[in-house]
């Protein structure tokens, strides 16, 4: 046998083996990468356990890529830019517009339709140009956290329900304690203080940042009032020191350490706060409303959303995985574990083992309506950052009036919406 003939036999045999392996590939060989920050925030191993249930049902393996929120965001953005996103990705509503516009995440409406999935059971869907790109798996409300010991030390008996009551309580806290009354983290690295600690006041009094999906910051009297309220709090020294450099975690630390009387934060932090400060005497309360407002309150919500990468080679299996997470039983379990509200309207989480404060927050949530105008907004983080910067300029006196501050922000926002 000549050398060429030997080579031919070897090449043919290797090719045949490779072809055989390819043909025998089935669902058992499919592994989906699932990149998210949820695994870090859930109890150890809880997410893996839920995913293992899917593997048992379908044979499709799930490889979890769990990192803190900020790292996940950077990795997802980098993956979107390079077309190397993980198959299934945890999404924040504020990222959807940009990733959908880039074509980095898949159109879930098409996938749901192809799979015959009944989407009426989903409590919400985040859309871009009429199609769904993100499904909120669980929702987190942002109520007002209240340190009852600080209130008692300040001689306050009732939790404030209106802006003027809130300012009165702040004055007493300032006068009688060493604690700060309120905190808005304004570090530009993560400017979501604008969403969670500023806009919540507007939404709680029935206000809006947008009108018909477009920025409506000018000629918005209630928003002017909110800006003035914050200016008054800042000038009166009611805020934690150095809010301009604080991050959300710093605010939580201040609250945990008993140096902050009120904060607006997600109930997802309840377990952490309880574990890290077991003696902290705190409760949840509805956001104070503007004095003359007696309508329904909007409550800021954030969600753990889910989407599929456009570069995913197993979209069918990825959609099956999303349907599994959104099934009433699994979704209820996830919501219970995460101290959150389910994304499937048919899910009935058993909250009996959850902290009673969670149930209190749930009640507050049910008495109002969920709102977050940054969800699905274009370059949402940049919108928050530009308002953040303008708010600091107003605090510092560089901008004279709240109207000027809002006009400058409107100009920046319009550029993003056009």
């Amino acid at each position: 046998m000549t050398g060429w003939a030997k080579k031919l036999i070897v090449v043919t045999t290797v090719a045949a083996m490779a072809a055989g392996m390819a043909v025998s590939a089935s669902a058992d060989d499919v592994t989906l990468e699932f990149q998210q920050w949820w695994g870090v925030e859930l109890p150890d191993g809880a997410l893996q356990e839920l995913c293992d249930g899917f593997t048992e049902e379908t044979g499709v393996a799930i490889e979890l890529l769990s990192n803190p929120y900020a790292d996940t965001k950077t990795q997802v953005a980098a993956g979107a830019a390079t077309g190397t996103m993980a198959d299934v990705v945890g999404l924040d509503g504020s990222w959807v517009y940009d990733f959908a516009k880039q074509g980095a995440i898949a159109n879930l409406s098409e996938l749901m339709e192809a799979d015959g999935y009944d989407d009426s059971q989903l409590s919400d869907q985040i859309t871009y140009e009429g199609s769904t790109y993100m499904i909120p798996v669980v929702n987190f409300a942002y109520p007002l956290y209240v340190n009852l010991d600080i209130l008692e030390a300040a001689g306050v008996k009732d939790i404030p329900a209106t802006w003027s009551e809130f300012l009165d309580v702040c004055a007493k806290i300032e006068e009688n304690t060493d604690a700060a009354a309120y905190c808005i983290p304004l570090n530009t690295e993560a400017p979501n203080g604008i969403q969670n600690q500023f806009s919540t006041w507007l939404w709680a009094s029935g206000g809006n940042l947008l009108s018909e999906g477009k920025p409506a910051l000018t000629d918005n009297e209630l928003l002017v009032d909110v800006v003035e309220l914050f200016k008054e709090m800042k000038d009166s020294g009611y805020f934690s020191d150095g809010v301009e450099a604080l991050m959300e975690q710093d605010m939580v630390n201040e609250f945990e350490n008993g140096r902050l009387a009120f904060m607006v934060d997600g109930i997802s932090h309840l377990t952490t706060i309880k574990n890290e400060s077991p003696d902290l005497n705190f409760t949840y309360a509805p956001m104070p409303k503007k004095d003359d407002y007696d309508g329904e309150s909007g409550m800021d919500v954030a969600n753990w959303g889910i989407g599929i990468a456009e570069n995913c080679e197993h979209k069918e299996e990825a959609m099956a995985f999303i349907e599994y997470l959104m099934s009433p039983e699994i979704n209820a379990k996830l919501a219970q574990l995460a101290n959150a509200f389910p994304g499937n309207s048919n899910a009935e989480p058993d909250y009996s083992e959850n902290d009673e404060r969670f149930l209190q927050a749930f009640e507050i949530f049910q008495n109002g309506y969920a709102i977050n105008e940054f969800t699905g907004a274009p370059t949402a983080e940049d919108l928050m950052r530009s308002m953040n910067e303008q708010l600091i300029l107003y605090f510092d006196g560089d901008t004279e009036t709240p109207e000027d501050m809002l006009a400058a922000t409107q100009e920046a926002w319009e550029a993003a919406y056009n």
Partner: protein
Amino acid sequence: MNAKTKKKLLPYGYLLPTIILMLILLVIPILMVIDYSLYDNVIANKNPIFVGLSNYASVLKDSAFWTAVSHTLFFVIVSIVAHMFIGMLFAMLLNTRYLSSRTKGIFRTIYALPWMFTASVIAITWRMLLDPNGVLNYFILFFHLSEEKVTFLASREIALQSVTLINIWSGYPFYMISILAGLQGISPDLYEAAALDGADSVHSFFGVTIPQLKPILISLVMLDFVWTLQQFALIWMTTGGGPVNATETVSTWIYKQGFTKFQYSTASTGAVILLIVCTIIGIFYVRHQRAEE
């Protein structure tokens, strides 16, 4: 292929793995970024339009970019000068003959510690130190150095100085170790000869030490210039470029353009400008190294 050609090609064969790696990890990404900078917007826009150098014109007209440039220059120049001063001071202390080698070893380790920490650890540590409720403010109030707490990272007036201070702290050990190595290589004969000529310690320092260290010092300054120019993690994790844009540097400006505004072409343009500056410094560095040889 004859033996002569084979012999000629053999060295290139040995170099091939490195060349392939450099192509994939260095040359191709750089060319891609340069290419991106010539389109209206890439990645976010599926059908980008070639716009030539107009992105460069826009970036160079952008006042926010020039603010970032001025902050970067302050950050880089102050960092380099302070690194040099502290590095030299500590290296001379560690090179003294008045301390035992054991004592010097302990201090060498202590002084070198900041160099061992990653940017995230440094950022977290300094954020805690500089916090209005942090240790530094405790001492400031305790010793009545100020009537009220100093908001180091939250004040637009001093935030840039504060992040520069953090960078100085994290970067001086590199100078210290390099200068110390240089000092230990200077022959004692030179100092003895200088002493015989009547030189005091100041004259010896400027007449012997500095000229002997000159090649190391020039290399250090050039490397530090490039590294500090690109410093991102430390600033991002402490202030995020704020308050407002008080600590915005070119690197944070580029990041925001790319990852929050999704203007990848503008970000690429900024990156290319930074690349050009670093390349010029790099050329000087290589020329200097060659001249030394």
